[in-house]
Structure formats: structure tokens, C-alpha cells
């Protein structure tokens, strides 16, 4: 049997392969030879064969059949064998392998070997990849070696102990006695590994931490060692660019950080040395900056005095100006960590940070962007926003979404004026319109709605923006919605803020129709556009026929959502034209609901206190707490019209939520006033059934008749009757038509009907036919209420009536409990 080829020979051969296939062939051939050699139990060449196997393993080929051979090598008496055997074990025999544990005995023996290099191999292997069982078995041996005077072994034992503790934390205690004298060593290797071991113990166990602080007086020892390192003269063995053993310095600083954290005494004891390191360390090379970096991290994390903290931030500020990118990067990372606690100090470096937005490196740009957003406040908003918008323009696509969201948030918090706010939004929409997050669209719409005096300006700017380009979906959606709402302002040229443009109704419809037709428009955008066109039917005067035509065309659209809408809008034109103007009238100012959805709603379970809200800068709308009051005092006459027009768009009418919870137990569950996450973009709660009711089946058809009507209220000459309709296809919905009649001799004017239902129901009130109940029963006011009752509970309702009669204001509250079972079962 010829001797197996040498390792280097094999490497040379394999490297001559010109294709992957050729290489594979060579490897397979050699593997076959190695396998047969293993089968023959050849001791002489086992080492060589395993080495070759390890080479092939690195190329990516399977080598598991060599596992047992590694074990045999480890058990051999020859040092060469052991060296390769342990290397093989570390590469092929990790703890997931079945045969891993078979190593334990060999390692145990080798830990007690007469040659320190063999002991070293064993310690190294155990410390790199020993499993928990192995660590448990061999911890005793490691602990013994931790106490040896041989520094070569002692340093390895210390790191081996670190691994044991990481794998089996309960064993930490047993290493405690051995740590007593570790720091008395002169050998830097032992010192370094001891500091690592102490760090691991202090990080894992608060008891250990306390023990080392108090009993062992670790801080003074470490301070002493660090001082010696700094003050001592040149030591060629440990010198790196003029600094003595930077690795050890950094580890000591890190351990000091852990010891000083939340502990005044320890922090004080290390104050001087930290200041010394911070001021005396050479900063021209990376190694000095590495030490300064660690020092800064320590200063910021312990209870340091303010002078030291300022020193630290200034070091970071200097880092920002360093030519070395890596230094700038760590500076930005550290500043990001400290910006909350030392805000003012960081503000001083704002202009440098903003400059970093222009850096070429992506990681630096991201850090700078995050930091910039953290530094925005009421004073610097204008300047910062200019920079951030410029950044948004020029940055990579991966940043645009985050940057846009950040800008919206900052603008909301600190906008100096409404006009500025709208302009900023416009700028974002036009620059990065396609990267704006979907949930930003409803928020923007709400913002625009609430800026009442800016409506004309806003709609004009949006119109101009999409004239040229209607490919950016969020921009088009917002624009379409606004045009639908404020189209009348657009064509009448009412803009105050800037030169009003001349637009005809046809031109507006042109652009909306283009959006509808365009291939670039998503289904959602088309929905917006169609609804906008429909709304314009009540705002435009000359083009109603055109609108009717468009709407009827889409009645046969293949897009189900569009078709649904078009069919219903058609119905509005045909059968319910008398309700059209009321249904499509201008949206009221929306309540800002700061919640992230149902999961944030706090269960108060009968308590009358709402859960404490997290502090958040007040949004431009009413505060959440005042909303809670609104629920209780809803009928106390605030500005919000209690009537919600059925908005057939996906814009939620948040006012719907407030009409709930008027009954009996003042339970604020279901209130939108829940604790928001501070950084979240506020969202508006959505009563889903309003849309379901529209989109899943047409109402007013398919109804169940024959439900007896009831007199809900009859007092002082005012009578209110309820008649019911229910849909067969959606039995949770009950439609109540109320009729109010007046038998007195004088009219009742300014009549307002309001209703509330228990929280398991949802309610929607449509526009009344008028606000005057004529005398002598000569006419009635009709109004439609839709009730969603998914749990089929007994219908109950509380109503409030206000009107003027005989010269005085009248008000009454009543409960309606006589609903017929067929109306809710």
C-alpha cells in the first residue's frame, strides 16, 4: 500500500483543478483513499489523513467520517497526533455530534499531562467548544489549574472557566476561591484573562458583583493596575504604538464600568483614573481611540460627576471630526446612546452630526439620521428640517421610509405654523412619495382636515403636484381625497396663501379619471379616486352628468371593490338622491385618537379611572384625556357634530367610537384613550362595520319586514317612533328609522337626536331629514340609525333630545328598552 500523499501535495493538486467538477472528482478520489486507510487502522498516517480531511472540509466537503479518527488521534501519545486531533475535534466534533462526549476522558487525562503544551491543547479545546456535560465533568480540573503557578496554564484555565460558567452558570461559585489572588500576577496574559473571568462573574451574578465590590475591593486594585500601565515606561513586550497593553486597559475599563454602574462609592473611586485616561491617551492612532472609546462608554454608564460626563461627550465630539470613518461611526453610535440622558451636551455637536448625513458610508448615514431626529426640538426645527429634507432627497432608498416617517413625526411635534407643516408634508410626498408608509396616509389626511384655514391652499398644491406625475401612490391617495373634499375650493380659486390657479371642473375630473385609468394606480388608489369623483357630485355644479357617467361605467369594473362602490354610488344617484348631499357633505374635524389598535385598549373593568397615559407631547388635536371626558359629557354640547355622515371611503369616522359607553357602568373599555407608544404615529380608530356594511352587501335591499315598530319616546307632545329593518344576509345589522312628530301647537326647531348603545354594540347615525319638527303632526323628521349587534344581545338604547320650543331650550334623556325581540335576536 503506497503511503498516502502528503497534505501539501494534496493542496497543490486540488488547486490545479480548473473546474468545480474536476475539483470534486479529485476530492472524491482522495476521500475514498482516506476512508480505506482509516478502515485499515493505520496509525502512522492517520494524522496526515485527518489533516487532509480538514482541508477538504474547509472547501465545503463532508468530513464526518473523520470524527472517530480525531478521537483516536487525541488519545495517541504523539504530540503531532494530539495537535491535529484536537484541531479536528474543534472543527468536526462540536457538541451537536453524538461522539462529542467521548472526548471527555481524553481531555481529562490531558489536562493532567506532564507537558504543558498538551495541557494547553486540552484547555483550549474545552474552552472553545466543550458541551455543558463536559464542562460539568471537568470543571474541577479547570479549577485546579486556575490555581497553578504556571502562568501559561493559568491564563488558559481562566478563559476555560469563563466558558464553563457560560455553559453551566451554577458552577460559578466553585471558581470564586481561585480568583482571590489572580490580580496579583505580574504576567499580563494572566491579568487579562483574570479580568475577563471577573467580568463574566460580575455580569452574571449581582451577588458576585456586590462581593467583589465590597469584600475584595476590586476597584482599587483595578485602578492601581491601570495606573501602572499608563505611568510605566516603555515596555517592548506589550507596547502598541506607544501605548502599553491596550487590550488589558480596555478590559479593565470595561470591568470598571460594571463595578461602577449604579454604585456611588465605586464610581467615585474610579473618577480620577478615568479623567486621567481620558486626557492623557494619545489619539493619533486607532489603538488610543479604542481606549478613549471604552473610557467614554464607562464614564457615561457609571455615576460620574457632570464634569467628567461633559469631558466624555466632548471626546465624542472630537471623534466626529476625525478623518477615520471608524472613529466617526463609533462616535455616532455612542452619542445615540447618550442623547436621552445628556441631551444638551449632545446638542452642542448638532452641526457636526448633521454634516455626517452627507457621509458616503451607509452605516454612518443611518446613525446620523437617527441622531438628528433625536436632536430635533422646537428651536431648531426649521434648520433641521431643511437638512433632513435635503437628506431625504439624496439618500439611498433603504432610508427613505424611515426618514419620511421621522420627518412626519418631528413636523407634528414641533411645526412652527400650519402652513409650514403642510408645506413640509407636501415636500415629503413629492420627494419620497412612493416610500411613505401606508399608515401615514390616514394621518396626513386627518392633519389636513384639521387645518381648516389651509384647505384651499393644500388642495391647490396637491392638485398641482399630481398634475405632472401621478405615480406615487401615497401622494395620489392624499391628493385624491383632498380634491374630493375640497374640490369646490379648488375651482372657485379661493386660495389665500398663494396665487390661486384657474382650474375648471372638467380639468379636475380629467386628472381624477386619469388616476382611475392609469396602470400605475393601485386598487386602493383607484378607490380613493372614485370616491373623490363621487363626492364632487355635490360640490361641482356643471359636471354632474359626467360624474354620473363615470360612476356607472365602473359599475362593471372587474375590480370588486370599485364595482361595489360604483354600484352603490349609482344607487345614490337613482334611488336615494335626496340623501346624497347629506351623505357626501364635508367631513368634520376628526378627533385624534392616539392608539395603536385594540391591543392597547386598557381594561378598566368597572374602575372609573382611565389608565394613566404615557407622557407624550400633545398632538395638535384634543388630548386623549379630554376624550375620556367627552364620553361622559358627550351630550354637553361640544363642537363635534354628533351626526356622522356615512363616508364611503376608507377614512374612519372616529367620532363613532365616542357615542358608545353612555350606558350605566362608566366603563372606559373600548375608549380610544389608551396609552400610546411614544414614538408611534397616531392612528385613527376605525369602526369596521361601517365599511363591511357597505362593501359586503348592499343595505336597503334584502330586508326582513314585519318587525313591529315601537314608540321609543313620547313626552311633552314629542313622539318618536322606531321602525325596523334587518338584512337577511347580515343579521347583525339592524336598521332603525326614527320618526319624530310634534303634536303641540308650535314647531320644535333645532331638533337634534342623539343615541348611545352599550359597548357590545356599534352605532351609526345618518343625517336627519331636517331639524324642524312641525307642529300639529303636520310633518316628521326622519333619521336612520344603523346598529351592529354581533353578539345578538338585547337591544338597549339611551337617547338624548334637544330642541327649541316655545322660546326655550329643551333637553331630555330617555332610555329605550322596549325593542321587539325580532329587532335583535
Amino acid at each position, binding site marked *: 500500500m503506497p503511503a498516502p500523499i*502528503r497534505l501539501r501535495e494534496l*493542496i497543490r493538486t486540488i*488547486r490545479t483543478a480548473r473546474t468545480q467538477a474536476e475539483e470534486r472528482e479529485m476530492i472524491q478520489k482522495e476521500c475514498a483513499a482516506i476512508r480505506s486507510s482509516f478502515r485499515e487502522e493505520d496509525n*502512522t498516517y492517520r*494524522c*496526515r489523513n485527518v*489533516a487532509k480531511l480538514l482541508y477538504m472540509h*474547509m472547501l*465545503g466537503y463532508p468530513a464526518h467520517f473523520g470524527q472517530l479518527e480525531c478521537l483516536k488521534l487525541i488519545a495517541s501519545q*504523539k*504530540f*503531532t497526533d494530539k*495537535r*491535529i486531533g484536537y*484541531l479536528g475535534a474543534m472543527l468536526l466534533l*462540536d457538541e*451537536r455530534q453524538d461522539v462529542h462526549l467521548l472526548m471527555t476522558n481524553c481531555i481529562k487525562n490531558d489536562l493532567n499531562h506532564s*507537558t504543558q*503544551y498538551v495541557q*494547553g491543547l486540552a484547555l*483550549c479545546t474545552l*474552552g*472553545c*467548544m466543550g*458541551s455543558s456535560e463536559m464542562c460539568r465533568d471537568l470543571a474541577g480540573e479547570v479549577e485546579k489549574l486556575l490555581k497553578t503557578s504556571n502562568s*501559561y496554564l493559568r*491564563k*488558559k484555565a481562566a*478563559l*476555560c472557566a*469563563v466558558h464553563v460558567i457560560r455553559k453551566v452558570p451554577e458552577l460559578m461559585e466553585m471558581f470564586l476561591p481561585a480568583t482571590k489572588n489572580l490580580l496579583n500576577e505580574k504576567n*499580563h*496574559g494572566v491579568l*487579562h*484573562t483574570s479580568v*475577563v473571568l471577573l467580568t463574566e462573574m460580575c455580569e452574571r451574578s449581582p451577588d458576585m458583583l456586590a462581593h467583589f465590590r465590597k469584600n475584595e475591593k476590586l476597584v482599587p486594585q483595578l485602578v492601581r493596575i491601570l495606573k501602572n500601565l499608563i505611568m510605566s515606561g516603555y515596555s517592548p*513586550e*506589550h507596547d*502598541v504604538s506607544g501605548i502599553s497593553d*491596550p*487590550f*488589558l486597559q*480596555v478590559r479593565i475599563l470595561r470591568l470598571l464600568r460594571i463595578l461602577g454602574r449604579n454604585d456611588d462609592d465605586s464610581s467615585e473611586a474610579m473618577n480620577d483614573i478615568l479623567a486621567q485616561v481620558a486626557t492623557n491617551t494619545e489619539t493619533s492612532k*486607532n*489603538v488610543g*481611540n*479604542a*481606549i478613549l*472609546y*471604552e473610557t467614554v*462608554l464607562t464614564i457615561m454608564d457609571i455615576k460620574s460627576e457632570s464634569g467628567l460626563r461633559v469631558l466624555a461627550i466632548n471626546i465624542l465630539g472630537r471623534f466626529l471630526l476625525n478623518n477615520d*470613518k*471608524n472613529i*466617526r*461611526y463609533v462616535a455616532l453610535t455612542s452619542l445615540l446612546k447618550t442623547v436621552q440622558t445628556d441631551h444638551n451636551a449632545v446638542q452642542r455637536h448638532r452641526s457636526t452630526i448633521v454634516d455626517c448625513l452627507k457621509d*458616503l*458610508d*451607509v*452605516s*454612518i448615514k443611518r446613525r446620523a439620521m437617527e441622531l438628528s431626529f433625536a436632536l430635533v426640538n422646537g428651536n431648531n426645527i426649521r434648520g433641521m428640517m431643511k437638512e433632513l429634507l435635503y437628506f431625504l432627497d439624496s439618500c439611498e432608498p433603504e432610508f427613505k421610509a424611515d426618514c419620511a416617517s421621522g420627518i412626519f413625526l418631528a413636523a407634528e411635534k414641533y411645526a412652527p405654523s400650519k402652513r409650514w407643516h403642510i408645506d413640509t408634508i407636501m415636500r415629503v410626498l413629492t420627494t419620497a412619495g412612493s416610500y411613505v408608509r401606508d399608515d401615514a396616509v390616514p394621518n396626513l389626511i386627518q392633519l389636513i382636515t384639521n387645518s381648516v384655514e389651509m384647505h384651499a391652499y393644500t388642495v391647490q398644491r396637491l392638485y398641482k403636484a399630481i398634475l405632472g406625475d401621478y405615480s406615487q401612490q401615497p401622494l395620489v391617495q392624499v391628493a385624491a381625497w383632498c380634491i374630493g373634499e375640497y374640490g369646490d375650493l379648488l375651482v372657485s380659486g379661493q386660495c389665500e396663501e398663494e396665487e390661486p390657479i384657474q382650474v375648471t371642473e372638467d380639468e379636475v375630473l380629467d386628472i381624477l379619471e386619469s388616476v382611475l385609468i392609469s396602470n400605475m394606480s393601485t386598487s386602493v388608489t383607484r378607490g380613493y379616486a372614485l370616491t373623490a369623483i363621487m363626492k364632487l357630485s355635490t360640490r361641482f355644479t356643471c359636471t354632474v352628468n359626467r360624474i354620473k357617467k363615470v360612476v356607472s361605467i365602473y359599475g362593471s369594473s372587474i375590480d370588486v371593490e370599485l364595482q361595489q362602490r360604483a354600484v352603490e354610488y349609482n344607487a345614490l344617484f337613482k334611488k336615494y338622491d335626496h340623501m346624497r348631499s347629506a351623505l357626501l357633505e364635508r367631513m368634520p374635524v376628526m378627533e385624534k385618537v392616539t392608539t395603536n389598535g385594540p391591543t392597547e385598549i386598557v381594561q378598566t373593568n368597572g374602575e372609573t379611572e382611565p389608565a394613566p397615559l404615557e407622557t407624550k407631547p400633545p398632538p395638535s388635536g384634543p388630548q386623549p384625556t379630554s376624550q375620556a371626558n367627552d364620553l361622559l359629557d358627550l351630550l354637553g354640547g361640544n363642537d363635534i357634530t354628533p351626526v356622522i355622515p356615512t363616508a364611503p371611503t376608507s377614512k374612519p369616522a372616529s367620532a363613532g367610537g365616542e357615542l358608545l359607553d353612555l350606558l350605566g357602568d362608566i366603563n372606559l373599555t373600548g375608549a380610544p384613550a389608551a396609552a400610546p407608544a411614544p414614538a408611534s404615529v397616531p392612528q385613527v380608530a376605525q369602526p369596521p362595520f361601517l365599511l363591511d356594511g357597505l362593501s359586503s352587501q348592499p343595505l336597503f335591499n334584502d330586508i326582513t319586514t314585519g318587525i313591529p315598530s315601537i314608540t321609543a319616546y313620547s313626552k311633552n307632545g314629542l313622539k318618536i317612533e322606531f321602525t325596523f329593518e334587518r338584512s337577511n344576509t347580515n343579521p347583525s345589522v339592524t336598521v332603525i328609522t326614527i320618526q319624530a312628530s310634534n303634536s303641540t301647537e308650535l314647531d320644535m326647531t333645532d331638533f337634534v337626536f342623539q343615541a348611545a348603545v352599550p359597548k357590545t354594540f356599534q352605532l351609526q347615525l345618518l343625517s336627519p331629514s331636517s331639524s324642524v319638527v312641525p307642529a300639529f303632526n303636520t310633518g316628521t323628521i326622519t333619521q336612520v340609525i344603523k346598529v351592529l349587534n354581533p353578539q345578538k344581545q338585547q337591544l338597549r338604547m339611551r337617547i338624548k333630545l334637544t330642541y327649541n320650543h316655545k322660546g326655550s331650550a329643551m333637553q331630555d334623556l330617555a332610555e329605550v328598552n322596549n325593542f321587539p325581540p325580532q329587532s335583535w335576536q
Partner: protein
Amino acid sequence: MQFMLLFSRQGKLRLQKWYVSLSDREKKKITREIVQTVLARKPKMCSFLEWRDLKIVYKRYATLYFCCAIEDQENELITLEIIHRYVELLDKYFGSVCELDIIFNFEKAYFILDEFLLGGEVQETSKKNILKAIEQADLLQEISYSTSLLC
């Protein structure tokens, strides 16, 4: 440190040291991902990047990329020094080290690394001591074989 990878500009792996337990498949996947990401970096970019919940510190020496994955609390700048120290050790040992030395003597590269780091931490900060230990171990290897059957 969780792992260290050395690879060429073509993405060929020259050394892999793992200080955490992962399956072979995972190791391959991670290696592929990181090699791809690092090779895609432009020369003017900084030496750090975020990858999953780790920080990757890398530096190119001639045709070889040295790449370390460290945890959040570890110091990136000193990791660069660790990489540099390892290169210095290889350089001293091989005499003006180049990629070929590491290819043909990969086991020695591992031995040197294992004298410098243990379990992902620095075990010896003196260059002299590390090289002395390697020298002694090599001698021991020579003695245990009258002729070396490895090379």
C-alpha cells in the same frame, strides 16, 4: 467574539473559527451571507456593519479579508487591533506572510490563533510569548517524529 472568518477576494474560505455551537448547515449559511455582504462593501466604507444582532468588524490585508463577529457590548475599535495583532503574529511566524502561506499551512494558522485567542477572548497580549509558545510546540512536534510525516 462569536466567530472569525478569513476569506479571499473571490469569497474562498481560508480559515473559520467558531466560538459558538451551530450546525454545519447554519455555519455555511452564515458564512455565505457574511462573505457576500463584506465583499459588496466599497473601499471607502467603515470597517463595521450590523448583521443580525451582532457587529461585524472586518479588515482587508492584501488579498485576504479578516472578519470577526462581536457582540453588542464589545469594543469595535479594539477588535480591529485584535485582527491586526493576529496578522502581525502570522507575519512574524511565516516571515512576510501572504495568502498562499495560509492556504498551504492552514493548520499552523489555527495553532497560532489558538495561542492568541481562547473561547473568543484574548489570552495573551505579548507577541513574544505567543511566538515562543508556538516555537516550543513546533519543536515538540519535531521531536515526537524523527521525520515529520505531515508535510
